[in-house]
């Protein structure tokens, strides 16, 4: 390795050869042409070492247990979201599908109106059920397993 390359490595990676590129860290520093060059190289090595000493003072504390715990909890929450998404299609009876579809679209476009529209559709469905003959009341509304979206309205169709 040439003295010039040695100087470049000192200036880029510092004085500790463990930080140099592996293939060059093992090489000899090379002979300098003059005593002045040797002094310059030694000065560069000294400066790099002093800066390394300063940089080593900057330490970072390891991650707290609480951070690890919250990171490990994230997948569980993600799985919960997937589970809810998987369950929702089973809940879709014809009436729910209509109401959910409309609400989902409206919720995206007009969030504040979506709840109002949902209430209207539900009212219509219940009213329509009352109009049916007693022996033909096949329309039923089961809200026991209904899971609302994060905002309490949308997400039926997601």
């Amino acid at each position, binding site marked *: 390795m040439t003295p010039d390359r040695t100087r*470049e490595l000192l*200036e*880029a*990676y*510092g004085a*500790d050869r*463990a*930080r140099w*590129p*592996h293939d060059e860290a093992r090489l000899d520093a090379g002979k300098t042409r003059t005593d002045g060059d040797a002094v310059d190289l030694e000065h560069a090595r000294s*400066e*790099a070492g*002093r*800066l390394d*000493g*300063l*940089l*080593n*003072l*900057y*330490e*970072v*504390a*390891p*991650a707290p247990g609480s*951070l*690890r715990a*919250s*990171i*490990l909890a*994230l*997948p*569980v929450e*993600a*799985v919960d979201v997937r589970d809810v998404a998987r369950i929702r299609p089973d809940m879709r009876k014809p009436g729910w599908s209509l109401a959910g579809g409309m609400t989902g679209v409206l919720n995206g476009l007009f969030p504040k109106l979506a709840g109002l529209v949902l209430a209207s559709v539900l009212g219509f469905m219940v009213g329509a059920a009352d109009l049916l003959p007693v022996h033909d009341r096949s329309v039923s509304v089961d809200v026991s397993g209904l899971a609302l979206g994060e905002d309490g309205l949308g997400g039926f169709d997601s």
Partner: protein
Amino acid sequence: MNARMLDDHRASDAGNQPKDSGLGAGDDTLMLLAGKGDERAYGQLVDRHLDRTLAFAQRVLSNRSEAEDVLQEAFLRVWKKAPTWTNDGARFSTWFYRVVLNLCIDRKRKPAHAALPDDFEFADNSPIADAQLEETQASELVEKALAELPDRQREAVVLCYYQGLSNKEAAEILSVRVKALESLLVRARKNLQVLLDGVRGEVLGETR
């Protein structure tokens, strides 16, 4: 990080093998297991990479709280990526460093941040004042000096010096050639020398 730690780190990375894994599996294997819903494998990945990448994010952002937020988001991406993970040449650690770095860059874009050009060099008359030394810990001064660097210079020195990555891996993460990486490193260290010039002698004198 001392030389021995650096060697351990490089040896661990080179073989892509864990230092602390009870499963005895490499990162790619753990990703495949995590992709099948194995939370224990995911936990192994967290244990293996959390401290190192948190330090990386903190040094890039100069902000501990934001660094922790970044790591939460980054590991969530690991979990989401796991089902489709393929070992197509990119090592997990390289991919993950990129994820963390990109999230850090996104964070730094949000506030009004006057970015300095990559080839910026501080004038010799702008060291951090000596008087600060008595009031502030040396570690904080170095952190402050690091924060003063242009983004790419800081990222280069953090990846190579503090994270102990090889020049090739650091260059890959930064999407530059090795020669360009070395240029960034040289400028970064020159700037750091200028910024820390006022405190250097006293700090080293104190710690000897």
